[in-house]
């Protein structure tokens, strides 16, 4: 099974969609008519640009209130972290941990992890390629779970809509946070993990 050679070094390009191997310089896949490219086009630039935008939005997402809970006329804005503390206060430790992981840790790990991967490829850092690929795989997998907070707010907003008695209104951080999730997901898909293996200083 093992041949120990990159497909590209043997003059072959794998179709991103159907997996068919074609010779270099074939513009279109003969099987599925998809565009062919040896590596995702401008992978590092795109990933870096999306990451920078996500970093910029990560701040307002955590500083501004993500929702405002109004009870009997008195409004109480909640930030993401504030919401976690509210859960801890009401004794919901496991749920608080879940929200902490999904809304704080996952976006942070994604941003830092992808940045490190981009740096390691760009500066040819001597890294363990297999480990870096596993890190990439985890980042690509966990990204969507950050939407948890957005979905929770959607449900609260539609249910708690009782006029003066109680009302939940989504705050500006919700848009910023949703953008962070979407942008980091795009960043993960625009990064080409094969670049890790193209790095001449990487080892297995």
């Amino acid at each position, binding site marked *: *099974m*093992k*041949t*120990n*050679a*990159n*497909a590209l070094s*043997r003059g*072959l390009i*794998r179709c991103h*969609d*159907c*997996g*068919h*191997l074609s010779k270099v310089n074939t513009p279109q896949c003969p*099987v*599925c008519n*998809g565009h062919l490219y040896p590596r995702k086009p401008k992978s590092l630039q795109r990933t870096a640009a999306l990451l920078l935008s996500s970093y910029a939005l990560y701040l307002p997402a955590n500083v501004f209130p993500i929702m405002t809970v109004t*009870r009997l006329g008195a409004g109480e804005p909640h930030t993401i972290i504030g919401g976690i503390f*509210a859960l801890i206060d009401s004794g*919901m430790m496991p*749920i608080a941990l*879940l*929200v902490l992981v999904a809304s704080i840790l996952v976006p942070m790990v994604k941003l830092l992890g992808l940045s490190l991967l981009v740096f390691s490829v760009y500066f040819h850092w001597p890294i363990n*390629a*297999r480990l870096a*690929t*596993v890190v*990439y*795989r985890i980042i690509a997998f966990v990204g*969507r*779970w950050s*939407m*948890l*907070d*957005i*979905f*929770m707010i*959607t*449900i*609260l*907003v*539609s*249910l*708690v*809509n*009782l006029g003066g008695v*109680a009302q939940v*209104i*989504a705050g500006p951080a*919700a*848009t910023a946070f*949703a*953008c962070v999730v979407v942008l980091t*997901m795009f960043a993960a898909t625009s990064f080409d*993990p*094969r670049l*890790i*293996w*193209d790095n001449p200083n990487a080892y297995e």
Partner: protein
Amino acid sequence: MELAACPECDLLLNPHQAAVGEKAHCPRCGYLLQRPSKQSIERTLALSIAGLLLMLPANLLPLVGIKVLGTSHDGTLWSGVFTLFSEGMWAVAVLVFLSSMLFPLLNIVLSLLVSFYLHFNKPNKYLSHWMRWLQHLKEWAMLEVYMLGIIVACVKLTSMSEVKFGLGLYAFIALIVVTGMLASHLDGYLFWRHIRRLNNKS
């Protein structure tokens, strides 16, 4: 036989057809290359029909409801999107609409189309387009994340009111199970092989 390559590390591989129940990993980076399932096409077809049927009650019936001061409020998938939109949070509303309603639906419809044509051995010039969209869409259908959101929201609400589960929630959970099974039974490697065969035939 043709050669193959690992999508994540570009290692050139000799083709190897994994048996049902077997998993083929890339020897260099550990990527899961193939995980063939028994009767992949037939099961995909059956599961997508089941998913399509569940889509309607899951989208229209109330998922959860609360009861405060004698009045009860029900929430459906759609009412969340609508309320966000009317509050001026249109960007979030669009994102929630796409990831909890449109993309799950498209995911099921595309699986149905592809498996239907493969099962009845009919060539169609759009087959590879559908398959490609299906692969790109998969990540953006987030029903199971929404379910987690429902759980957290219910925990937050129990302190202020009585929470009731609606009929739609059962359909929604069933839909999550079906889409999960769909993802594990749809063998992309096998599907592309059949699409190639059908394209050559036409």
